[in-house]
């Protein structure tokens, strides 16, 4: 099991979501974050006060996946988040010790395997 953490451009977040869904990655968490990488500086001016904005807005994806899902997940993110300019972000793949699904108490691989729609709806 791995945790895939990706920090991407906010304007690419929708593209990444779409690419992940196409790759059958369904469980994920996103948050708005600010970060600093190698981006060229942004200069803004408010009434004669000029500032360099050193933190850029980013969106962070956190996706817990079973091992065989790591590659398609990362590939989907790389392909969809890339613009080719500095500041496209990073993908981190982190080992995970334990995963629990809160609703059922399922552990590890079972906890990150999506429930079948039929089972969730009717059973």
């Amino acid at each position, binding site marked *: 099991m791995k945790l895939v953490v990706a920090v991407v451009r906010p304007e690419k977040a929708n593209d990444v979501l779409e690419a992940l869904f196409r790759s059958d990655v369904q469980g994920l968490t996103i948050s708005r974050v600010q970060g600093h990488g190698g981006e060229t500086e942004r200069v*803004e001016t408010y009434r004669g006060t000029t500032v*360099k*904005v*050193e*933190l850029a807005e980013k969106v962070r994806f956190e996706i817990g996946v079973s091992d065989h899902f790591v590659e398609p997940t990362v590939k989907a993110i790389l392909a969809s988040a890339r613009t080719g300019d500095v500041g496209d972000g990073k993908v981190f793949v982190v080992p995970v010790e334990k995963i629990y699904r809160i609703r059922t108490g399922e552990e590890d691989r079972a906890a990150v395997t999506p429930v079948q729609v039929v089972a969730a709806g009717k059973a």
Partner: protein
Amino acid sequence: METPVIVPADVAFMLVATALVLLMTPALAFFYGGLVRSKNALNTMMMSVAALGFVGVAWALLGYSLSFAEGGPLVGDLSKAFLNGVGLDPVAPVTIPQLLFMCYQGTFAIITAALISGAIVERMRFAPYLVFITLWSLVVYGPIAHWVWGGGFLAKLGALDFAGGTVVHVNAATAALVAAVVLGQRKDYARQAILPHNVPFVLLGAGLLWFGWFGFNAGSALAANGIASLAFTNTMLAPAATLLVWTLLDLFRSGKATAVGAATAIVVGLVAVTPAAGFVSPLGGIALGAIAAVPSYFAILLRARTRLDDSLDVIAAHGVGGSVGALLTGVFAIKAWNGVADGLVAGNPGQVGTQAIAVLATIVYSGVASYVLLKLIGVVMSLKAVTKEEGLGMDFSQHGEEAYADGEGAILVLQRPDSTASEGAGALAPAAQGGRS
């Protein structure tokens, strides 16, 4: 020729009406600004705000003369350019100083140019936009205002346009359509959900527009009299009827009455009643407002399924609403109320045809002239922001500001007091957070 007289009551009323109409442009900034994404909020609002400056000055220097100087049937001459001879004396039959009349009409030119921006927000570069609206107010708005209000051919034809249904709304919407086509779509249009970032702003803008519109319509009587009161009444009742019908359409179609829909309905009602305000009875106004809701409502639904990225539905609200209003003016006009002309319901079906001619003439001229203007500007400067600028947001890429900056990670750039002006960035404050470079 009657001797020109100044009527103090009229002057007082028109001073207030002029200020009311001027308020509509910042109101439009809120209406449009709330409808776009947060990264484009300032740019969208600036498109309206800038019109106050650029079109305002162009109007005083040239536009007023092109619209209201003697001239011919198509355009005024330059005898009043640079406010030549525009002073404190009235020009009969108007009973207010010509200077005030110039200001009042100027507020119309400003809002008309600003209306166009709704079709090209989130992608048009700011500098070419400024060039476009400034020239447009002279080349397109000036002549069309002359046709209808300056003694041009539509006035002689007997077309009824009380406060600018064709001159302002059909005209702006046609230019908006052309601009949306010339500019092309936003990169995210029909690919991602593009949602309004601040619906309360939209409602605030719609409310302020309604408030200002009392000056727009009632003021178009140019006197504090009964016709002004009639126009005022219709300006209250017609949008109310549009709002009512729109809400019911929302409820029947989806089961939910939407706030953005309500704000849109108010604007559509106001647009539709604009040409009719001083010509129709109050009940006629209610009927007109109610009817006008339907075509605009479905035009918006239809537009969303097309490839035309008229981002804030200028065509559905102002083009369709304005055209329907102009035609219905020919239906509901009653001479017993307005003392000018009858429409279809009062036994004069020909008036509808005259109205249609006015709408068509406006569409043709505004469409062609706006297209040529945009293409010419496009030769000199690039009209559309590149994909990267669009992605970053127009606020940062065009203005170097953010609407909702939280200041985190912002490092103050100190300007050296002794450095020459062109020195550039200056030094970083050493104590600032971050500490890079």
